[in-house]
């Protein structure tokens, strides 16, 4: 009698997990099917050999590899800047004393509450005024000192960087910036890794910002490029799925390598 509920629990969790993963499976299966075979009766449940063809369609309809390149470029730039800016601010908030510190940190927390659509129109106008429409810095610069990143860095620095180490360095005559760069930053490596992953993934997936500022297909990042394929009257489903699979595969790989770190980072605000 005790075994039945336990078995049921296993079955429910396993079936649920199957439903979670099935769409990914079909994305990869469809990527290898021709445009029409995807909608066969019964539907294709296994891989076929149309991948090369689908990629050909994809690269004639879109500057696809260029789009992949821009996505990588924007992702890496935004990761590098975010790590630098957020570790700087997070370190200062955790380890240093200065006037207006509490007020400024409250400001950081408050910016986390602002819904993304609030900024949609005015940030378009700011980009327009700066002449940044259709440029990639409009994608990686504005969010590079994110409140989430600063919060994550502050929490981590506060719990791992020993204050005694900093005062010892000060007595030895190290400069404040030197202490941040040479002593604190190396100790913050694990959190930098987590924030880097999260930043890269959210930049890679970002749709709303490029939608508002990017104009020419040559400059599109992947999500925007793929969507432009969707809007044509007769959708090339096979090519579209191949593109989507290419956009998704790096994320799955990153996730498999670092799921524990990623999940902990993404839920950090809640758990801590």
């Amino acid at each position, binding site marked *: 009698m005790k075994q039945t509920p336990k078995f049921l629990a296993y079955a429910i969790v396993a079936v649920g997990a199957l439903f979670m993963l099935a*769409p990914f499976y079909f994305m990869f299966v469809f990527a290898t099917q021709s445009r029409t075979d995807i909608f066969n009766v019964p539907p294709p449940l296994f891989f076929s050999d149309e991948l090369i063809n689908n990629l050909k369609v994809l690269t004639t309809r879109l500057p696809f590899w260029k789009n992949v390149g821009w996505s990588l470029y924007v992702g890496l730039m935004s990761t590098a800047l975010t790590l*630098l800016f957020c570790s700087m601010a997070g370190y200062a908030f955790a380890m240093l004393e200065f006037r207006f510190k509490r007020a400024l940190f409250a400001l950081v927390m408050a910016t986390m509450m602002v819904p993304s*659509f609030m*900024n*949609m129109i005015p940030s378009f106008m700011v980009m327009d005024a700066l002449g940044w429409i259709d440029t990639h810095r409009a994608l990686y610069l504005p969010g590079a000192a994110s409140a989430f990143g600063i919060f994550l860095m502050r929490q981590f620095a506060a719990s791992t960087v020993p204050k005694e180490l900093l005062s010892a360095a000060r007595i030895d005559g190290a400069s404040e910036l030197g202490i941040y760069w040479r002593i604190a930053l190396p100790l913050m490596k694990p959190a930098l890794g987590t924030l880097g992953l999260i930043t890269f993934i959210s930049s890679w997936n970002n749709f709303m910002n490029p939608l508002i500022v990017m104009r020419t297909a040559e400059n599109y990042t992947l999500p925007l490029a793929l969507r432009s394929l969707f809007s044509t009257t007769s959708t090339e489903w096979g090519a579209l799925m191949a593109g989507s699979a290419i956009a998704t595969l790096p*994320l799955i790989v990153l996730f498999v390598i670092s799921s524990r770190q990623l999940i902990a980072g993404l839920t950090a605000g809640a758990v801590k």
Partner: protein
Amino acid sequence: MSFRIPSRWAPYLLVSPFLILFAVFGLFPLLFSAWLAFQSWEPTSGIEAMQFVGFDNFAFALTDGWFWKSLRNTLWLAVATGVPQHLVAIPLAVFLHRSFGRWRGLFSGAYFLPYITSTVAIAMLFGSLFSTDYGLVNQALHAMFGTENINWMRSPEAIKPAVAIIVFWRYVGFNLVLYLAALQTIPNDLYQAAKLDGAGPWQQFLRITLPGIKPMILFGVTLSIIGGLQLFEEPFILTNGKGGADQAAMTVAMYLYRLAFDFSDFGGASALAWIMFGIIALLTWLTNKAFADKQVQR
């Protein structure tokens, strides 16, 4: 030797990138949008053409049929995706916590994966799965229940559930992980003691588990409300930015986008943004109050 800045300036130097980026891309746009909400303006006519119109933009939004429609759609979707997310995530988390041991990480990972993948890729994939004539979903439903094909993307009744399924699928794992973390903080002795007192699994769930994860429920529900009311990408991509048949999947955030970028009404869109901001703040506050009140009664 090397150039040194005075050490009392160092903290400000370290927070300066945040301050500069926030001022230019956070605070200024926000203030500008507050000002814009009282202006009549379209971007093509240049900044001089801006005209102060008082509360006209707000009055227009509140009498605009499409605003109310998009608000109803948004609330419908927020409830239809938010409630099941938690009703499913809580028992799943309990199952995983109790009986999965070292497989826990693997399974929670499977549930979490949709959360980190590209909305565009996912929306397109579901677009093909929900396709009317030969889509996988319709074929599966037909094979299992003999149902007629449902025109998911083009009928006003079906598109909302389709969007809700996608959003549910994407975020249920996130909530699952939150609840798993909360469950780990409940001391095992409590369950042992309850067992000795003769409490069954259901009693234990009601008396120990639920109260133990209550702060997380509050947090998770608040996140779902805030996120649900901002819903934009999934319906936007699926309906090509137009909102679908009879605008049945047009959320407020989508309407805001259309008002600004399709209809060039920047003032009206700004007013709409502030109205929606107020609604989100109000609902968040109400949620917190509702949960807090119950605690007092106990």
